[in-house]
């Protein structure tokens, strides 16, 4: 448990609840704090700790930041009985996880918001267009969880002239789904779903796709290391900075902004796989072009 600046009366108490101390969660917390401190040095009385160590016995915070799914659940539960709980900003959460947990009333009231960890569908598709201009058909393996991404992806694909081919894994098993999707896909878009993409299945999916010369677009740096052609993701620090911006805005007296996607992102390329599949890709150039597309 750490207390930041020893608070004078004017400081604003903010809790930063971590799903896990250390690692990605700590990295995001540090980036968030640094972003806020830069604008409001010394004004915040930070209390950064694992979510389970916060109790109602402690002085009530003005703002709560939850980092990760576990922290969001923990903080929601902690203030569940309050009629006016302190506003909660959840960051580093996958959109589907956030939406499953979020209380719609609090969302509407503007006392709950988020900075997601996943990438918006349009960004994924624009990346495919920039990096693999010949691709028309985007294949996906979806499970019960990642099915939730389909409506937004379908809309974004339609606007950009892509065809989507999704195969459900749980109904038929992984291999049947791969057989169904690979012949109809120019690229395979990986969507996080522990029932579909995990350390067990990644080897099978990557080898099957490679055998068919279908490149894979992953959602984490681990995928690029494992053998995906490309990955699009935001680092914990990038998500933390975006969270810091949201918090600053709220601290400035404005409302908590609506849930957002991370603004900054990384495009990573596995150059060995690119060479083998006959692609010449420059990740910094692609990243730059993608950013330009979003913020001309």
């Amino acid at each position, binding site marked *: 448990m750490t207390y930041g600046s020893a608070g004078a009366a004017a400081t604003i108490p903010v809790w930063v609840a971590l799903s896990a101390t250390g690692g990605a969660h700590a990295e995001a917390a540090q980036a968030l704090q640094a972003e806020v401190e830069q604008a409001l040095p010394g004004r915040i009385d930070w209390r950064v700790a694992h979510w389970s160590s916060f109790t109602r016995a402690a002085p009530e915070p003005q703002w709560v930041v939850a980092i990760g799914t576990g922290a969001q659940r923990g903080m929601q539960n902690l203030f569940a009985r309050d009629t006016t709980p302190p506003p909660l900003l959840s960051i580093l959460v996958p959109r589907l996880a956030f939406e499953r947990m979020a209380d719609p009333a609090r969302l509407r009231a503007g006392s709950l918001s988020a900075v997601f960890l996943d990438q918006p569908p349009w960004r994924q598709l624009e990346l495919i267009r920039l990096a693999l201009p010949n691709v028309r058909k985007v294949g996906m393996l979806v499970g019960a969880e990642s099915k939730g991404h389909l409506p937004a992806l379908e809309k974004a694909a339609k606007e950009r002239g892509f065809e989507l081919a999704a195969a459900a894994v749980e109904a038929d098993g*992984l*291999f049947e789904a791969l057989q169904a999707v690979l012949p109809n896909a120019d690229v395979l878009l990986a969507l996080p779903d522990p029932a579909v993409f995990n350390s067990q299945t*990644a080897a099978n999916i*990557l080898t099957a796709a490679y055998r068919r010369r279908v490149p894979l677009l992953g959602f*984490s740096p681990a995928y690029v290391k494992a053998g995906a052609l490309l990955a699009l993701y935001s680092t914990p620090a990038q998500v933390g900075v975006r969270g810091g911006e949201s918090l600053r805005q709220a601290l400035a007296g404005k409302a908590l902004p609506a849930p957002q996607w991370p603004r900054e992102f990384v495009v990573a390329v596995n150059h060995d*796989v690119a060479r083998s599949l*006959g692609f010449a890709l420059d990740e910094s150039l692609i990243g730059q072009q993608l950013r330009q597309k979003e913020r001309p």
Partner: protein
Amino acid sequence: MLSRRLFAVLSAPTLALLSSCAGAQEVSEKDYFDELPVVLSVSRLAQPLKDVPGAVTVIDREAIRRSGARDLTDLLRFVPGFVIGHINGANPIANYHGDFDALNRRLQVFVDGRSIYSSLLAGNVSHPMMGMVLDDIERIEVLRGSNSAAYGANAFSGVVNVVTRTATDVPRFSTSLALGEKGIADRSVRAAWGDERLAVRLTAARSGDSGFDDANDDKRVDQFHLRADLRPSAADDVMLTAGSVRHQWGATDMLRSENWRNVFVQGQWRHNVDADNDIRFNGSFDEEKFIDQIYHFTLLGVPRPYRADGTGRRLSLEAEHTTRILPDLRLVWGGQWRHEEIRSPDLFKEQTALTAELRRVFGNVEWRLGEKWIVNAGAMWEDHSVAGPHTAPRLSLNYHILPGHTLRFGSTQAYRMPTMFELRGNWRTPSLPGSLVLASGGIKPERLVANEIGYVGEFRQLGLTVDLRGFEESGSSIARYFGGYPNDVVNKDRYRKRGWETQLRWKPRPETQLLLNHTVLNIRAWATGDTHISDELSAPSHTSGLVWFESLPAGFEFGLFYLTYGAMTWGGKNDVLDTQPRVDLRLARRFKIGGTQAEAAVVTHSATGSYQEGDPGRYFPRRTFATLRLDF
């Protein structure tokens, strides 16, 4: 239907596992931060065509499916530089730049990493090449030109690398049937099941026809193949294959019938040590049995049977390590040990088994010098227990002139080890005293020096790829049967083959695919003692081929295959063959019957009539057949 039930039973635990965990399988940030094992490590990534130290033609699944081919030689007919011949309708032969005799022993053929050839029949690959079901093949990579530095002595003229489909890539159950003229009757069934940890494919097939006209060469091939892929951990994969093949012909023939049988098992284990290191172990065991029954007429005109039977066994163990030494320097090195044992009193006049051992050490580096240059250098040292040690080196430079345009310069030296028959053969017939072939054992390995210049161009906007290879192949100490009666096997001939070949692949629109081949080959041959026209025409002076695939509406597909040869001779005979252009046609329709994918096709081979392809007395007849394939 049994296989479907089998699949359901076997995969039930997996499905149950998935659904029981469903509650716990909610996405969280953990999915984004979990580490993954390196799956496509450097050694599992294939070199792209522009970086390969040689000319490569890839025949993919789609091309195989649409080819109308019934065996591997049918597919090789459209690889530049390849020449197909027939001893008879049951025994097709394929070799790069021709140079046929009755046994095809200068080509290396792999199936899933296992070298297939007959130890007993002087290294012949023709019988083993019948032993595969085309519908099981994912891809065929043909390395045009000598490649002994990477693959050893058998890769004297070229390498055909067949990669079969895993259970995970095929439908659960498939069946196919072909029926048509000239007794064509091919059928196969295949079942596949499994999950992420173990996947198994089983195929059984029988194919046959009545061969050529005026030849007693009715053929039947029975085969059974198993492939199991295991993934005990993310860093390991294991492949097991096993099978049996029986290739027989002439069963209805009074004069001659042959029956070649082969059973094999193979295991391969690949282990990923880390991102830059992979190791691979491969072991295989082959057993073959050959029954050759010939009726010979004695001087009094009385037919008397005699046999040229034998058995062979081969055990091969191989280890290979792929490593990245520097970011731009990859090394593959390893060794192989092979033990061969053959027994044939009929062919060797030796009651006991003859054995030979081969030890090999090889290494190949791929060194990238900036973005423009790639150096591929390698060598293989082989030590044969009878023929002694030899080293085959290779050097190739690939220069990427512009993105999508690569020039290649290569030079290699290859040796072909003599086979046991060439070293120790002693073949007799009952009607004559003495031997027809009596090998003195003085034969040395054949030697080949090959230089090439190549170009690979990719014009993405046009959908066109161009492959051009200019070559000079100088063979010396080429083994020939010589002496008359008896024949010895001697290092007799020299040749120089010069020419160029090109392959254009053009996909002007998604529905159309065109493949255009052209080969020009000039052979100069020198034989000690006497010269034959046959040597200089042992392959056609030019070969042109065209393949046209067209996808039509309503699931229809059309294929046209056209091939024309220049003048050539066959098997050392001086007769110039009557090589007419060959045209094959295929019309197919793919449709669904409920959940079943069906494909019906009509194929005509040699639509314009019969022509000579191989032995001068034999004509390849026109034949039409219909096929039906169902994938459940």
